[in-house]
């Protein structure tokens, strides 16, 4: 229930990423990257060698960490762990599916956008997207 879900008000939280190398590098360049004392990063680079298990673990870790407010996840990565992303329902951290460079963004796969689309009638915004 929404009323019971605690929304912590914090002054410094991180953005974490699960994405392909280029996207991660770009955001790191902007300065969202963080490495803590135990050499734990707040991002995971997904390449051809990354297993689904690793992605799952990273997703679970990022969504349970206290200091992370937003988890950005490339859409094609989110599709690999779709069941986890869809079953996640806490307000914080927020899950954000972002397009990646070599995978075109498909709004139909986005767990939030598909719900948005359901709520909108067909003639409004959603129809213009296809």
């Amino acid at each position, binding site marked *: 229930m929404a009323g019971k879900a605690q929304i912590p*008000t914090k002054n410094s939280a991180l953005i974490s990423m699960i994405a392909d190398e280029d996207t991660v590098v770009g955001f*790191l360049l902007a300065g969202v990257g963080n490495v803590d004392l135990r050499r734990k990063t707040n991002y995971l680079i997904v390449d051809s060698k990354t297993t689904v298990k690793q992605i799952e673990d990273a997703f679970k870790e990022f969504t349970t960490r206290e200091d992370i407010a937003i988890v950005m996840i490339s859409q094609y990565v989110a599709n690999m762990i779709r069941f986890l992303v869809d079953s996640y329902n806490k307000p914080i951290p927020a899950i954000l599916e972002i397009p990646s460079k070599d995978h075109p963004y498909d709004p139909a796969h986005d767990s939030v956008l598909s719900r948005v689309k359901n709520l909108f009638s067909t003639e409004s915004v959603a129809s213009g997207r296809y």
Partner: protein
Amino acid sequence: MSGQTQRLNVVPTVTMLGAMKARLVGATRGHALLKKKSDALTVQFRQILKKIVSAKESMGDVMKTSAFSLTEAKYVAGDNIKHIVLENVQTAAIKIRSRQENIAGVKLPKFEHYSDGETKNDLTGLARGGQQIQLCRGAYVKAIEVLVELASLQTSFLTLDEAIKTTNRRVNALENVVKPRIENTISYIKGELDELEREDFFRLKKIQGYKRREIERQRANAKLFAEEQLAEKVSLQKGVSISSAHNLLSAAAEKDEDIIF
């Protein structure tokens, strides 16, 4: 599930009727308030919905431009900048501040980003492509702005969705379960009280009738007695006690069967 089965288990008294009426008033007021809340939330929800769709669209554009600028930077500065970037990660320069916004009693999270400390310039000292890298950094910072905005919209969307569902459930429960039940209880108590009143009335009538009959009987007795008295008096004047006359007749009837015949 209709009519009499759906009522509270109460003792039908006047006090209970008053309490039930108070509860009905409370339920009605609560229903009206919750309905208003639901409406307010829905208005907010619609606004957020519109914003989300437009933000998602702009996200696509922003991500495209930032990816382009990264490619440009890579082209100019060489492909190995990503290794340098990956190795130079220390602490986050861009962080998120989260706070709450209160909309009709529902707390919505709101994210905003801020840059913490100085922007790292260790990469711009590279031999080539400093300009391009700066541009690329700017593009990604812009992307983060949009994404953070989108994230807070999306979180609000989910929270509001949940809140609206809960509120609507409560509205419906009040409207379709609680209120009919209280109304049924009230009508039950009223019926029961009416019945009691009728019973009372009937009993009073009955008692009245009984009393009247009793009085009539007594009056009749008194009348009879008075008549007897009168008869006695008259016969005494004639010299024969009416009772002895009676006795004479009856005694004669007993003893001499054929006094006449």
